[in-house]
């Protein structure tokens, strides 16, 4: 009801930036530290516009050298679409998780959330971004060949979204269009 006060949210604790967040701040890239994921890996949230600059810095700096992009994942969270980057290093033990969250309220109906692509300068991201586009429906802007990779090229919808409905009831053999 409108006259009732909104349910009080738990006070957000502002976390101090970790070593990687500090490093990015020194180079003028703001980031927000999130609660660590399991195993105490530093997790930061970046604005999409800073993603490319930040990753180039982290990858090419000689002391940090986060030069191994392990995976790009997409998560359809309740409030937002998250693009998650797991970064490791070939030469040291650093680990970092970067999230780029696009709130669902900012995504116009019938359109996909937009995140800048890493593929033009990092080939490891190429197929992973295609996969995330295919399954979760995040459009990576600037990707050289953003095309469905695991599903057929003419598939409709994004199967790993929580609101996904199968176009054909595949397991119902009463359905004339089923695959059986």
């Amino acid at each position, binding site marked *: 009801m409108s006259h009732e006060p909104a349910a009080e949210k738990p006070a957000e604790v502002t976390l101090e930036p970790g070593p990687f967040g500090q490093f990015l701040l020194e180079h003028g890239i703001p980031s927000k530290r999130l609660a660590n994921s399991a195993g105490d890996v530093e997790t930061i949230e970046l604005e999409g516009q800073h993603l490319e600059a930040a990753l180039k810095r982290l990858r090419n700096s000689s002391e940090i050298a986060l030069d191994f992009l392990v995976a790009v994942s997409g998560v359809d969270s309740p409030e937002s679409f998250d693009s998650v980057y797991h970064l490791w290093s070939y030469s040291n033990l650093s680990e970092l998780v970067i999230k780029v969250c696009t709130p669902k309220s900012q995504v116009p109906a019938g359109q996909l959330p937009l995140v800048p692509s890493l593929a033009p300068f990092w080939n490891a991201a190429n197929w992973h971004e295609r996969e995330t586009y295919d*399954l979760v429906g995040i459009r990576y802007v600037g990707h050289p060949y953003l095309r469905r990779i695991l599903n057929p090229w003419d598939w409709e919808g994004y199967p790993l979204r929580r609101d996904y409905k199968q176009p054909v009831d595949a397991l119902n053999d009463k359905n004339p269009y089923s695959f059986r």
Partner: protein
Amino acid sequence: MSTELKTTGLKTDEMIINMGPQHPATHGVLRLLLTLDGEFVKHVEPVIGHLHRAQEWQGQNRTWFQYQALIDRVDYLSGMFTSWALSRAAEKIEGIKIPLRAEYMRVMVSEMNRITSHLLWLGTYLIDLGAMFGFPFYPFREREKLLDLLEAVAGQRMMFNYIRIGGVQREAPPGWFAKLKAFTEEFPDRVDEYEAIVTKNPIFLKRTRGIGNLKKEVAMDYGVTGPSLRASGVPMDLRRTKPYSVYDRLKFEVPVMEGDGDTWARYMCRIKEMRQSNEIVKQCLDQIPGGTPEELREKRKACNSCGKADCPNCGGDLQIMVKKQNAGLRIKAGEGFEAVESPRGILGCYVVSTGGDTAYRFKWRNPSFSNLSVLPVLLLDHPIADIMAIFGSLDVILPDVDR
């Protein structure tokens, strides 16, 4: 790119040829769209997804307990590793520390699984190269023995479902340790046998030396991992660089090849890895707390298998599972990424859990997926005849690519 032949005035043109999806040498269903200039490959587009079974979607729609049985099918040659990655991710979120004996069992069965996987690769790779003279069956002889042992402990030859969240499924049967020990004693001689036939075979060398060179920088740029990466000279092996489980207690070498990372180097790297895995199994047999199951049973007669945590015969580290699972298994809310070094490279599992009996999101980081993405670079300017020699050397498993 068309060129005109001066002598005849005829024109040549590039040709697009479709290879697969049911090519016998693709170990599954991989389709390659090749752009050829005469014999030579100018552009490749791998088309994957023919084996897509929506494993991640199924993970979100099945309970943890059900999903554990399913994920062995992600990579059917190394099922132990997929179970291990999933279990480690779940244990990390839940904060479980598993008993030492279970860790040793995990390492042991996984290293056995690594040997079987490499042995199958060796046999099929030689068939890919045209070596149909009977040699490909030599590796299967040893693989059969290992599969029998794995079947004895897990109840299945390939889809083990043995490593579970919280430990391993069951204790090894009586006599299993002795049989495994006998196998580890004879296995190095068998590898010598393979090497005597293959490593310096002139036909094999001609087919593999100096083709499909994978430069260090390219491999790192594409996220290639596993033996394919170490053959290019990058000493990255999770078992050594970020020791998980009990790998920090074991002595073994990580084979890294010098040179330009050609197809032969990838072959050699796997052969050396098999020997190291054999060493690891041997050490595990000696180090495992509690010794063989028969010894353990004798000791437990004293306390009548009380199962108490402080009992020197059954407590703590001598268990094989933290707590028996049931179908209502739930994992705390949280997220975690855990990776293991599978025979093909780094196999990662990213889990987002909201505390229910199913996970909110699964993401598999499959080594074959990233390794395959480098194929267009490797095949460039190679003749058609080399395609399978190069592709086979990456040891790609298509169900692992497509999930």
